């Protein structure tokens, strides 16, 4: 399939011109390398041969066929695509931070250690948890770390029979996937008609095999678990731990401390709540907060402060060990820290308040045409569904999403949560203006009119992107994954 039209989207490899050079490394040292003949590379790798200018133009051009928060409204539900302040970028790139080797002597790393220590402390204050680790690289990696801690906790208590993790059916895929990766059985419980955990159903599944109840608060429908007190009490009574998936913490920041809800383990996503850029899919940074009874299991090293000096501490006999080679995604955490410095406690609450206000505004303006899954007010995001006038014509959420691109908006998250048929999950975040949301609402209403009048227009969408709708079936049937 590499024979497809070469007109305007050639790969760097196709632009290669043997003999062109980008960067060089001139050798000035008088020494000889020692490469035993049997271990030498036989054929040079087929990397592109380009000038620096070729490279700059190629990747600048590619950047222009890409939606981003900087260029487009990006209301991707569950992903918190808020504005990424530029001062954070400058801070993380400072030589003192960027150049620090992960095995540096503690004495040479006091600045980074102090930052991480203070970040952990602030996160504890914000979440009501007793201790934090910032080692996980992302949300899913945090879940992995958190469930490992739960496993270590039950092993130490001699309760190896606790092999089940309960997740609501609205949970993100990483929840059951993480449970399975650690040898637990993922038990799915059905959400009640209001989209929340049904305590009676939960009760039927809780028992002495339950290790952890994983809750997302607010859940993926953008709803707070109103009966959380009852749910937590029930799970604790059964001897289980509560894990809170904090992907949606933007709705609670400065408003609610998950620790006070009775959560035992929770994660945060720096790339969601704390405004670090998503980088086209990553890197993010995770972090796990735990209550006192779980602190001894946190991964090593821990950061300690002793008479004004910060130290990395590896002497934690019950620690789960390591989840990655070195300390977490510190470059990302530096951005999150700078973001926190710019917010007083009141301003932190303002993040959640404005996020919630914006989501409810969006919901209230759209729900007459795009029915909302829940009749209640939402927290930071809402889940809508396509108008019946459109579905009657065979149109799907996917068609609406693709048409939105023509209007210059990234589509919301679609087909998630799985429990909502044809879900359209909208998270505007607090950083988008009413003006932008109004324009998005106008586009959504216009798309409804267009679809009712001319369904094919939506089925053929997008019309204005660099490519028309792409054939995903062919991509999966005849995978072409490399040049």
């Amino acid at each position, binding site marked *: 399939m590499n024979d497809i039209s070469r007109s305007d989207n050639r790969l760097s490899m196709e632009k290669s011109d043997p003999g062109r050079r980008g960067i060089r490394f001139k050798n000035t040292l008088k020494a000889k390398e020692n490469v035993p003949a049997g271990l030498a590379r036989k054929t040079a*790798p087929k990397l592109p041969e380009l000038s620096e200018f070729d490279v700059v133009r190629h990747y600048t051009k590619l950047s222009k066929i890409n939606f981003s928060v900087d260029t*487009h409204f990006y209301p991707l539900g569950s992903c918190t695509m808020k504005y990424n302040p530029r001062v954070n970028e400058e801070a993380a790139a400072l030589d*003192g931070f960027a150049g620090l080797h992960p095995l540096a002597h503690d004495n040479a790393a006091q600045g980074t250690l102090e930052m991480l220590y203070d970040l952990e402390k602030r996160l504890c204050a914000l979440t009501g948890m007793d201790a934090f680790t910032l080692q996980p690289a992302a949300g899913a*990696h945090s879940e992995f770390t958190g469930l490992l801690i739960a496993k270590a906790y039950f092993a130490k208590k001699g309760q190896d029979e606790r092999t089940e993790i309960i997740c609501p059916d609205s949970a993100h895929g990483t929840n059951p*996937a993480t449970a399975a990766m650690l040898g637990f059985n993922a038990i799915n419980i059905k959400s009640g008609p209001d989209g929340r955990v049904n305590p009676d159903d939960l009760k039927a599944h809780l028992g002495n095999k339950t290790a952890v109840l994983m809750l997302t608060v607010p859940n993926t429908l953008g709803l707070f678990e109103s009966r959380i007190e009852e749910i937590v009490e029930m799970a604790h009574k059964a001897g289980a731990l509560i894990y809170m998936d904090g992907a949606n913490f933007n709705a609670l920041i400065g408003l609610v401390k998950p620790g006070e809800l009775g959560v035992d383990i929770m994660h945060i996503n720096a790339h969601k709540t704390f405004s670090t850029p*998503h980088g086209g899919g990553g890197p993010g940074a995770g972090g796990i907060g735990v209550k006192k009874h779980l602190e001894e299991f946190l991964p090593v090293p821990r950061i300690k402060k002793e008479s004004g000096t910060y130290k990395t501490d590896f002497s934690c006999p019950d620690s789960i060990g390591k989840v990655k080679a070195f300390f977490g995604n510190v470059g990302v955490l530096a951005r999150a820290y700078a973001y926190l410095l710019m917010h007083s406690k009141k301003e932190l609450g303002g993040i959640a308040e404005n996020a919630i206000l914006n989501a409810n505004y969006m919901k209230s303006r759209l729900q007459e045409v795009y029915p909302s899954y829940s009749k209640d007010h939402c927290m930071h995001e809402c889940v809508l569904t396509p108008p019946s006038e459109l579905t009657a014509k065979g149109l799907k959420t996917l068609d609406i999403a693709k048409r939105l691109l023509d209007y210059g908006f990234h589509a919301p998250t679609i087909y998630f949560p799985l429990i909502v048929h044809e879900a359209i999950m909208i998270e505007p975040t607090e950083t988008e203006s009413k003006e932008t949301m109004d324009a998005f609402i106008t586009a959504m209403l216009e798309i409804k009119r267009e679809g009712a009048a001319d369904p094919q227009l939506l089925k053929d969408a997008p019309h204005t992107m660099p490519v028309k709708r792409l054939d995903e079936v062919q991509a999966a049937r005849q995978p072409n994954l490399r040049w």
Partner: protein
Amino acid sequence: MFSANTEKDREEMLKAIGVSSIRDLLKQVPGKYLYPAFDLPETSLDEQQTARRMKALAARNTAPLSFLGAGAYERYIPAAVKALISRGEYLTAYTPYQAEASQGILQTIYEYQSSVCALYAMDCANASMYDGASAFGEAVRAAVRITGKKKILCQETLNPQYLQTLKTYFADSAEYQFVTVPHKDGLVDPEKLSALLSGDTACVAFQTPNFFGLPEDAPGISEMAHKAGALVVTAADPASLGLFAPPGEYSADFAVGEGQSLGLPLSYGGPYLGIFSCKKEYVRQMPGRIAGMTRDKDGKRGFVLTLQAREQHIRRDKAASNICSNEALCALSATIYLALLGPEGLKELALANARAAAFAAGKLSAVKGAALKFKAPFFNEFVLEVGDAARLRERILAKDHIDIGLPLKDLYPALGQGALLVCATETKTEEDILRLEKALRENI
């Protein structure tokens, strides 16, 4: 702080919603949990103060002349790489769920996968993992899944951080058996390897160059493993592949690596780049995102995320891995870095590393009281005997502002307190190395 809403906007929005205050929207939250006391600052910093505070913190990292390696390497980062990856169009996008609006990032992922395949001489690669160690863990998991066997052979000279992470990735059951293949003079002992390989071995998982900086006889190890019916999982430093045989040349089944070596900053451990590649028969065992080339309705070339039936958002508890967000921007950075280097630049980079280390080893081993620990050839780091490595490190750091390298006693007690892992990459000049030599001479 960064909200655009004015008081007027807020009022208009509340009115449109039909409530009188934001509190009205929070009725679903039991009141006793709302607005608790927070032990956090009453005041915030403005942008300038924030920049100043961050600068002051960064300055508290003392930035000595450093000869640390051990899995993370000081690299020169080309200006064009930094400029391109700070473009907001890349920086502030997310996973390309809407392919038509994300062709830029999708094409760069495809180019990344292609570059990794070229570099490692493998059939296919994914869009990235968290870091080299987690990629290694996931690759060994795949090997165990494929073979259905539970015995895993690892070299004694595997980076201890990788070994620890690997064990964490196998915390799901106590049935796995990790067996250490001892080293002889710093390299995998082929006789021991042969004796330990058996029909129930899932894979031989090894690193090259190994933790001591020595390239292993990877072709030999691979051949022995395959003869015994075991798979081969190799972790190879991508910077070494400008000179040394890539995993594909010796038929490795899975090849991973720490992509930090491809021009990423050290940043105290992350964000780094987990390179993951494999033979094509195992493509459906790969974790994480994969980009593929396809056509649009008009037959024009385009790119999408593909083979998603392996992933958590579709398969949930049956997924190959739980990974969701990856290290896309780091992968883009590595792609641009490799495009700037090309095959010639990659070779020059590898040579610059090998020569810097060779020069350093020559000078340092001539210092009285210092000697090379192993005779085998090395790439860009080597083990030096220096008496009391930890004490020497402390002293020279305090006195001369040089970090001489990593003392190995805690990780490899058998090597004794003299063993020091010293690394010199392309960033080290003759002057730097002579400074180290002088410091050693004066303090040993």
